[in-house]
Structures are given as structure tokens and as C-alpha cells.
């Protein structure tokens, strides 16, 4: 394998037309583009050729990024999984541009789904591109006693056909042959008559075909009228018939189905059996993410490593250069403070060595909680309680990172097993009632892990309308795992009645919010139309890689916004605005919500991090009904600063700010109503 270059081009809605070749230094190399339906194993070929791994997705349409690498004297491009070439959605727009530019196309086909996949193949051939077909999963074909004749397929299509198994990596030695022997396939006779006129005007067969198929994007570029829907239909139906003929000639089967995995796949579709399966899946997820990672792992990383070592040494070091006051609390086993000592260093922490040593010994006792505060405003901005550097490091690396890894790992397992599309199907009808379709289960489920991560994932939904509804649900009602942990602790002391009130209120708000949005938002939501991939045991190798790349992508995207948010809150803190807010909120807190004045602090903290908000309630002595009111308000209240920033980025300023202000208003409105009733 030759030297590897690669860069990831994030596709962005604002730039639907990617001009990759313009700033591409390797454009002298012929462009080899991997094209295929979702879940055909394209990315594994890309990985093999370029040595760089990309996201391989089992859920149709979860990625819109494109990856490029170099293999020998070719540039290799991967494209999102598509069922046909056009520009109906982001994935297709991205793929279309790359395909139009391609010199050679490696069309990866799932041997088990020839009838579906060859449709795209035939379209690529009709575009006049040099193509080689890769029949992937060929081992599965043999296992299932289906007979496919690759030679006959090659004859009918007029291009080379090679057979591979991406998982066993067999047939990969033929990829060089595949690239070198790519050629223009058999063109249907009628096509040239239809294309003739447009071809003379635009000069490329591929673009002429796109225009005739009614692709407005390509037509606009050439300033010509695109084909009518009728014309497109004629071309499509002709093509479909041709594909069906080809497939019936090359494939026949003498198999019987009925394996365990197929049965499981079938059972997970119907609510009767599907809901018990879902409960089992959720229970496993709970023990893995909610218990193991969110409690044990995060407790270790955040408190022991993050606060105990990283923040402690970072702040002690800073204290060498600036005056500081440090209070150290000794806790007993039940997290109650049993002793407090304050250390004041007027100049620097090591100017008075005996005091410094006393501090060092005392603060390193087990169960010691150390609180640094700095007088210098600038130091406070960077290293104080909400310090841009101190808080974000602990938060991002020691709290968020383990959770995000765990969530993406779990999602990758579910995706690669083929379970997720089935879950989407089972819940489709329920989701339609709230203006979404089954696909939206993914962002909603992710929301219980991290709302910020889930907000990014709303991209995969079919229309702007659905994205808005899903984002609003996430930002209003879904508590993230950090918040859930605190809620669980507080709830356990409040009793069963409190829990029931809490759950019902949140649930009612969810229903009201989503049905109202569904009713009043203009437009229509899309209906579910998904292909259910085969159920299979996930390839761990692939799952790990996918987890890594998604985690990396998320951290890259969210970290920036978290720093921006932290800067903003840090400024509020050092300018005294944070205290001002606490005073402004105080009347609402005491009269309307019937909570102690100090609870306002919890709300203000909630602006930064949702669990800060809930954790702020720990030290107040509240009755169980007060806890209920406080938790309802906190749950509905604004999402954390990182998810707010990500929402602004995803949904735009207008919508983002409306949702954000909406959460302020409704959190206090509903919290107050509940308070007036039960207190």
C-alpha cells in the first residue's frame, strides 16, 4: 500500500455543491469512486484501499461526510450509501457531485439484494461512466444456496464483475484488476435517442441523463430545462424492467430461510414480541451505560482523575503565581462535610512554606474536597469555578468522553446487528402521532445519553419539520445521563408518589409539546420507507472503529461550542452577572415555585450544565413535593450550554433562540402550576 493522505470533507447544508477538485492537489490522479447502496460494505473497501477507515453504517443514511484517500496512482473517494443518483437529499447531493467527477466507479453490490442494487449499477452504466461491479457478501450467497452467475451478469451489463467477501477479506486481491479494467457498459439502444438532444447541449452523458431524470441541481448548473416527472418515470420504469430481466437471468435460489437471527429480526418488529425484546435491550443498555459507565467509570474519571488530580494540580500550579483562597472540606462516607479548613495565600501558594505544607497534607487526605478561588478576575475566567480551561477539561474529557464512547459503542452494536431499523419500524406508528417517523428513535434514544450528541444526530431525519420537532423534544423533555443520575438520587429520597408525579408531568409535557408542534408547524412529515438489513452479529472490529470515528467527530464538533459557552458563562461569573440573575429569579422561585430562595442558584447553574442544576438542590433541605417541583422545573429548563450552542449551529439562530427561551418560559410555567397544585 502506498503512502496515505486523507482528509475528511464535512458536508454542510450551506454548501450543497462541493467542488472537491478545486483545492485538491492530487487531482492529476484518476478519481476512483466507491458507489453503492447503504450497507453494502463500501467503506471496508475504501479502508482496504486507502488504509484509512470511515464510518460504515447499517442504518440507511447516518453519514454525510466523505472521505478521500490515495491508493497507488489513484485518488479514492468514498460516498454515502444511495439507492440511486439524484439530489433529493444531502447524501445524494454529495454523492452526485463526486460521481459526476469520477473517472472510474467501483460499484459495490450486495449479492443478496441484486434486484435492488443493480438498479443503481444500471443507472451508473447509463451515465456512461467506466464501471466495475463488486459483488460483495458473495460468501453469504453460497451459504444460502442461492446461485448467481457473475459471468453472465458481466456479459449482460457489459462491465467486469468481481466477487468478494468484505468480512473475510476474500477477493480483495482482485481490486487492482477491478480498477484497471473498469469500462463503459452496455447502453440500452433507446437511451441514445432520448439523450441525444440534451447531450449536444451539455456535453456529458452523465449530466444529460441527470437532467432528463429531472435533476434540477444539474439542470440549473447548465441553465437548461430539466426533464418532467413523466420523463423520469419512463426512464426509471424502463431501467427497473431491464434490471429485473438481468437479475432473473443471473440468479435463482433453492433455499429455505428460518435461521435464528431471521426469527429474532421478525420478532423485534411486532410490538407483542418486540416490546419485551426492547425491554431486554434497554435493560442491558442501562446496566452498561447507566450503571457501569455513568456511575462507576465516570465517578472514577471525573472525581478521582479529573478533580482529584488534573484540576488539583493545575490549580495548585496556578496558585503559585497569584493570590488564592482554598477551602478544604473533609467528607464522611455519606458525603456529609465533617470538617472545613480555609487556607489563604496572599501572594502565592508557596510563599509561606509551612502553610503550604499543611495545605498539601490536609488536602491530600482521603475524602477531601478542595475548592480553589482566585481573586484575580482573569485567572478566575480561565481557572475559576466556571473556568474556561479548568471546567471544560474536566467536563469534556472526564465526564462527557466516557459517556459518549459508551453511547456510540452501544449504538454501533445495535446498528450493525440490524436491530435499530427494526426498532424504528416497530415504533413508527407511535412516532407518526407526534409528527415524526420511526427513524427519530435514534436521536431520542441518544438524548438520554447526551442531548448535545443527539441534537447533532437529528440531521438524519427526513425534513426540516421533523428536525425541529425532534430538537424541541430533546431540548425540553429529555434528561441527559448526567442529569438522570442526579435526578435518580434525589428521587430515591422523595418516594414513589413524587416519582409518579414527576414521570407523568414530564410525559404529559412531551405529548402536549410534540402534538402541538405537529399541528402547527407548516409542512408535512415524511413517511417511513426503509430497507431492513439482515440481522447479524456485529463485527467488533467495525464497531470499535465506528465508535472511535463518531466519538472523534462529536468531540471535535462539541468541544468548540463548549469552550465558547464556557467563555460566556465565565464572563457572566467574573462580571457578577451570575449573581444578578440569581436575584432576578428569586421572586419566581419563592412565590411561584414555592421553593427556598437558594434554589434559584440551581437554575442559573443549570444554564451551564444540566446536572449542575439538579446537583444544586442537594444541599437544600426540601420536602419530597418540593423536590418533585424542583426536578420538573430543572428537567424542562434550558439544556446545557454545549447543546444550546450545537442547536444554534444545527437549527439556526432564530429557531435555536426560540426553543431556548421556550424552555425558560415553560419550565417555570409548568413547574409553577404543579407547585400551586401539590404544595
Amino acid at each position: 500500500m502506498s503512502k496515505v493522505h486523507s482528509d475528511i470533507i464535512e458536508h454542510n447544508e450551506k454548501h450543497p455543491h462541493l467542488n472537491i477538485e478545486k483545492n485538491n492537489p492530487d487531482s492529476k490522479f484518476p478519481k476512483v469512486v466507491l458507489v453503492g447502496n447503504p450497507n453494502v460494505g463500501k467503506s471496508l473497501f475504501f479502508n482496504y484501499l486507502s488504509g484509512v477507515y470511515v464510518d460504515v453504517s447499517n442504518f440507511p443514511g447516518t453519514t454525510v461526510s466523505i472521505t478521500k484517500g490515495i491508493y497507488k496512482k489513484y485518488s479514492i473517494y468514498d460516498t454515502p450509501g444511495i439507492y440511486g443518483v439524484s439530489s433529493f437529499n444531502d447524501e445524494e447531493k454529495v454523492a452526485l457531485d463526486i460521481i459526476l467527477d469520477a473517472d472510474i466507479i467501483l460499484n459495490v453490490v450486495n449479492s443478496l439484494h441484486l434486484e435492488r442494487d443493480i438498479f443503481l449499477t444500471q443507472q451508473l452504466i447509463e451515465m456512461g461512466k467506466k464501471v466495475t461491479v463488486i459483488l460483495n457478501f458473495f460468501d453469504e450467497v453460497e451459504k444460502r444456496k442461492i446461485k448467481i452467475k457473475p459471468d453472465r451478469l458481466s456479459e449482460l451489463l457489459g462491465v467486469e464483475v468481481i466477487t468478494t467477501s468484505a468480512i473475510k477479506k476474500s477477493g480483495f486481491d482482485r481490486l487492482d484488476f477491478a480498477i484497471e479494467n473498469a469500462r463503459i457498459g452496455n447502453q440500452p439502444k433507446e437511451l441514445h435517442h432520448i439523450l441525444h438532444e440534451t447531450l449536444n447541449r451539455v456535453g456529458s452523458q452523465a449530466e444529460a441523463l441527470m437532467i432528463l431524470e429531472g435533476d434540477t441541481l444539474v439542470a440549473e448548473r447548465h441553465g437548461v430545462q430539466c426533464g418532467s416527472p413523466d420523463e423520469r418515470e419512463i426512464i426509471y420504469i424502463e431501467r427497473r424492467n431491464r434490471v429485473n430481466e438481468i437479475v432473473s437471468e443471473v440468479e435463482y435460489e433453492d433455499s429455505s430461510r428460518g435461521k435464528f437471527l431471521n426469527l429474532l429480526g421478525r420478532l423485534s418488529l411486532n410490538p407483542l414480541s418486540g416490546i419485551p425484546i426492547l425491554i431486554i435491550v434497554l435493560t442491558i443498555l442501562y446496566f452498561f451505560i447507566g450503571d457501569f459507565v455513568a456511575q462507576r467509570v465516570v465517578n472514577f474519571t471525573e472525581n478521582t482523575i479529573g478533580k482529584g488530580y488534573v484540576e488539583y494540580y493545575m490549580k495548585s500550579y496556578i496558585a503559585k503565581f497569584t493570590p488564592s483562597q482554598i477551602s478544604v472540606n473533609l467528607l464522611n462516607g455519606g458525603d456529609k462535610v465533617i470538617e472545613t479548613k480555609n487556607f489563604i495565600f496572599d501572594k502565592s501558594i508557596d510563599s509561606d512554606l509551612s502553610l503550604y505544607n499543611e495545605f498539601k497534607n490536609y488536602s491530600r487526605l482521603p475524602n477531601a474536597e478542595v475548592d480553589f478561588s482566585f481573586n484575580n478576575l482573569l485567572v478566575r475566567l480561565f481557572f475559576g469555578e466556571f473556568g474556561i480551561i479548568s471546567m471544560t477539561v474536566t467536563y469534556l474529557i472526564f465526564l462527557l468522553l466516557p459517556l459518549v464512547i459508551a453511547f456510540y459503542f452501544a449504538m454501533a452494536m445495535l446498528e450493525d446487528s440490524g436491530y435499530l431499523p427494526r426498532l424504528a419500524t416497530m415504533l413508527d406508528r407511535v412516532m407518526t402521532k407526534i409528527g415524526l417517523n420511526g427513524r427519530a428513535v435514534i436521536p431520542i434514544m441518544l438524548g438520554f445519553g447526551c442531548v448535545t450528541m443527539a441534537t447533532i444526530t437529528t440531521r438524519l431525519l427526513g425534513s426540516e419539520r421533523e428536525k425541529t420537532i425532534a430538537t424541541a423534544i430533546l431540548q425540553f423533555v429529555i434528561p441527559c445521563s448526567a442529569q438522570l443520575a442526579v435526578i435518580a438520587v434525589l428521587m430515591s429520597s422523595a418516594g414513589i408518589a413524587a416519582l409518579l408525579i414527576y414521570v407523568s408531568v414530564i410525559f404529559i409535557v412531551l405529548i402536549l409539546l410534540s402534538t402541538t408542534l405537529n399541528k402547527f408547524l407548516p409542512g408535512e412529515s415524511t413517511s417511513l420507507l426503509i430497507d431492513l438489513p439482515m440481522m447479524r452479529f456485529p463485527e467488533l472490529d467495525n464497531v470499535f472503529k465506528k465508535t472511535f470515528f463518531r466519538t472523534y467527530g462529536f468531540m471535535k464538533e462539541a468541544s468548540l461550542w463548549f469552550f465558547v459557552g464556557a467563555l460566556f458563562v465565565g464572563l457572566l461569573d467574573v462580571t457578577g452577572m451570575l449573581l444578578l440573575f440569581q436575584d432576578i429569579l428569586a421572586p419566581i422561585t419563592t412565590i411561584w415555585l414555592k421553593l427556598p430562595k437558594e434554589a434559584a442558584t440551581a437554575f442559573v447553574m443549570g444554564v451551564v450544565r444540566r446536572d449542575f442544576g439538579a446537583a444544586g438542590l442537594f444541599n437544600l433541605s426540601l420536602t419530597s413535593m418540593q423536590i418533585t417541583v424542583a426536578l420538573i422545573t430543572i428537567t424542562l429548563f434550558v439544556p446545557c450550554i454545549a447543546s444550546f450552542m450545537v442547536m444554534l449551529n444545527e437549527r439556526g439562530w432564530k429557531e435555536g433562540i426560540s426553543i431556548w427561551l421556550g424552555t425558560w418560559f415553560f419550565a417555570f410555567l409548568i413547574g409553577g402550576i404543579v407547585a400551586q397544585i401539590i404544595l
Partner: protein
Amino acid sequence: MKNSTLDKVKKGTYITITNLPTGILKVQLIRIGITEGSKVFCLERLPGGTIILQKNRQEIAIGYNLAKEINFQIV
């Protein structure tokens, strides 16, 4: 043979698709392998009306609202 919409299909029947909605939906259906004239099997009909069709080894889930726009005949 009576023509009916796909939301009314019974589980376990072999059917022929006779009419699809127009526009982008039609294109998406044709690509995935469902055309006017395709013979498919109704594998499952979920409560609430989401339909699972099987065509050869391929399984396709179709939402209730989309199913209402597709016509079929029993084979």
C-alpha cells in the same frame, strides 16, 4: 380482482403492486425495488398499520401514510 390500498393488505398474502404515488416517493420506491407490477409478500402488518413487505430476500418497512397511497391486487 379487487384493487385496494396497501394499508389494508392482510399479513401473509402475495400481492401485485398496481399503483404508486407520484413524485419523489415513486422514485424512491422504484429504486428500492417496488414498481407497479412487482409481486411482493406481506410479511407483517404491525398494529397501527406499518407494513413490512418482502421481496425475494429483501424486507422493506412502509409507514402507514405512505401505504395508503399505494394500490395493490391480490395475486
